[in-house]
């Protein structure tokens, strides 16, 4: 997957400034940066929800699984109904089997018939993630997928993502504010600030770029941003 000089502006505000990067099959890429850096904007352009103001994206919408920052689910429908509806709309071949697998994956099998709005925020997020996985897409984009999950669910999520990348050769791009996650689970990190791509490489390379030794990766990341005037 490749993005070429992708820019996006809302009126006079530039949310993305000529961002280019590429991700290989089976690669896991983390997108980190402060609030309002343009992470969601970049991911939603990659997902085909928004058109970039300029620049190109090499993947088609159909090849992308999308997990938005806010759970995009129908709160009046049950867990099962949500999964089935989107499986239908995605034209998933073996619908029932896939829905079964997702229910198991999210650990919500026994809550299948519950109205989604009555689930906790984290459980809603689990369904949100499951919907992004339904079609088994070659590219998976997740916007802060772990932010509302408990530690056990986080572990399960990353385990799943690592397995998808390893076994299905799925390309994964996720954004997070937990830079520790980025360090641990991503092959590569992209640092975005004020719509600009400031860094692209491994977590180690970022620490080295800061120069002076730091306590951990998070401290290195903060120092990096400070050095760049953010």
């Amino acid at each position, binding site marked *: 997957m490749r993005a070429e000089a992708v820019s996006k502006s809302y009126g006079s505000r530039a949310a993305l400034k000529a961002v280019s990067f590429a991700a290989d099959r089976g690669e896991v890429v983390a997108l980190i940066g402060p609030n309002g850096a343009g992470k969601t904007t970049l991911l939603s352009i990659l997902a*085909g929800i928004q058109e970039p103001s300029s620049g190109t994206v090499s993947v088609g919408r159909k090849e992308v699984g999308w997990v938005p920052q806010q759970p995009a689910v129908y709160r*009046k429908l049950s867990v099962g*109904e949500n999964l089935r509806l989107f499986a239908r709309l995605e034209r998933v071949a073996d619908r029932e089997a896939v829905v079964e697998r997702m229910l198991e994956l999210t650990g919500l099998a026994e809550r299948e018939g519950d109205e989604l709005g009555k689930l906790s925020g984290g459980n809603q997020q689990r369904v949100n993630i499951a919907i992004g996985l339904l079609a088994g897409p070659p590219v998976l984009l997740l916007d802060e997928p772990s932010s509302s999950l408990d530690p056990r669910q986080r572990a399960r999520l990353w385990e799943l993502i690592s397995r998808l990348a390893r076994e299905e050769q799925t390309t994964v791009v996720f954004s997070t504010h937990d830079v520790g996650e980025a360090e641990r689970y991503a092959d590569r990190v992209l640092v975005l600030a004020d719509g600009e791509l400031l860094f692209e490489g491994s977590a180690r390379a970022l620490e080295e770029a800061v120069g002076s030794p730091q306590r951990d990766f998070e401290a290195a990341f903060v120092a990096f941003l400070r050095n760049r005037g953010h």
Partner: protein
Amino acid sequence: MRWLLLKDLQILRRSPLLLALLVAYAVVIGLPVGYGISAPPSKPKVAFYNGVAKQDNAFDLGGREVDASRYAEELFEDIDPIRVDSREAAIQAVKDGEALGALVVPSDITQQLQNATELPGIAEPPTLEVYYNADNPLKRRYVEQTVEARLAEANLALSGEVTKVAANALEVLLDGGPFPLPTGTIDVLGLKRANLALEGVRDGLAQDDPQRAAVQNVIAFAEVAIQSLDFAGPVLGAIAAPIKVNTNEVEGGSGTLEGFAVAAAVTIALMFVAVLLGAGMLALEREEYAFGRLVRGLVRPTSLLVEKMLLGALCAFLVSAALLGLLAVFQPVSLSRAPLWLPALVLGAAGFSALGVAVGALTRDVRAASLLSFLLSLPIAALALIPSGTLGDVAYDAVRGVSAAFPFKPTLTALDAGLNDAGSLGLPLLHLAALTAAYLVLARLALRRFGAR
């Protein structure tokens, strides 16, 4: 699209309170507005005090007994009287807002009438007292006009009586006979008989009698008087018979008032359900953030809009058809005319729903969508219901222009035509189809403009 439609119906089914409120609202607003606009204004309530004792009601008009209160009753034809016991009570009723006005018949009205007929030009004319509540000028004018119109009729009837008496007196003057006077009935000779008598006197006089010329002069005068009075009789009669009014109805657009009320009530119900659902259910997709998921290739934005349009139209159609069924109990709805009113109902539902979808495309959440729907719907309905003749030409043309841009007027026209055979059906149906398409295009443009997130 089918699955989305089913999903939305499922969501609606799980929001029974919301749905019940929407339907109740549509019906509760639709019915009274529909009937309110078509019902003629009701009779104003007027406090009435009649100071005349029952036995004093009659007065004497040239020997004829005339019942004074009969003329007061004339006033009641267009008002709803609240009978009270005193002038003070009548005035109080106006002050309390219980009555729009008060009408007081003074206790000496009979005497006043008597005096007026006996001493015309000298006695004060008989006077009724009318009190108005001035805090509502519109109603005040209505009561004023009603009372004045009725009073004119009472006056006319009374002057009719007077002329009859006058004509009678003339007759006696001409032909002679008994004439009633307050002091008792006297026998009047009459001009004709007096003339005959004079002719006898004249013939008895010698040809050269100097009185003969004098008598001849009186006879000549009597003849002229007889001829003039003979002529005066019919003239008086003509005055007594007032100008007759021949009322004719000019053919109007609408069939009956009740039929129009049904069309209006159904249109209002259609509007509320279709606009609110079209707007709300589209906005819900965004509020749930599902919109982004859907338009990334799962559903084409146009299909999504058409789906919401169908959803709103379907629900509005069902609700208004049920309302029509309910109204059929009071005002027959012709089933044989169904091929005419069904298309009106369907296209009206589609037009309103498309308008709702356009509203929904402009808004990001259900609350804003509902608010905007209300803000739009109420004035549109109000504008479309303004009758011609209440505004100046230019203003009315402007109102018509604005109304034509929204589905209310064409739906009402089409339903009135379909249900009540009032006016043409084809044109408003075409109009609705065009509006539906136009609003869908507008919604599509709005979606593109306001993007998906």
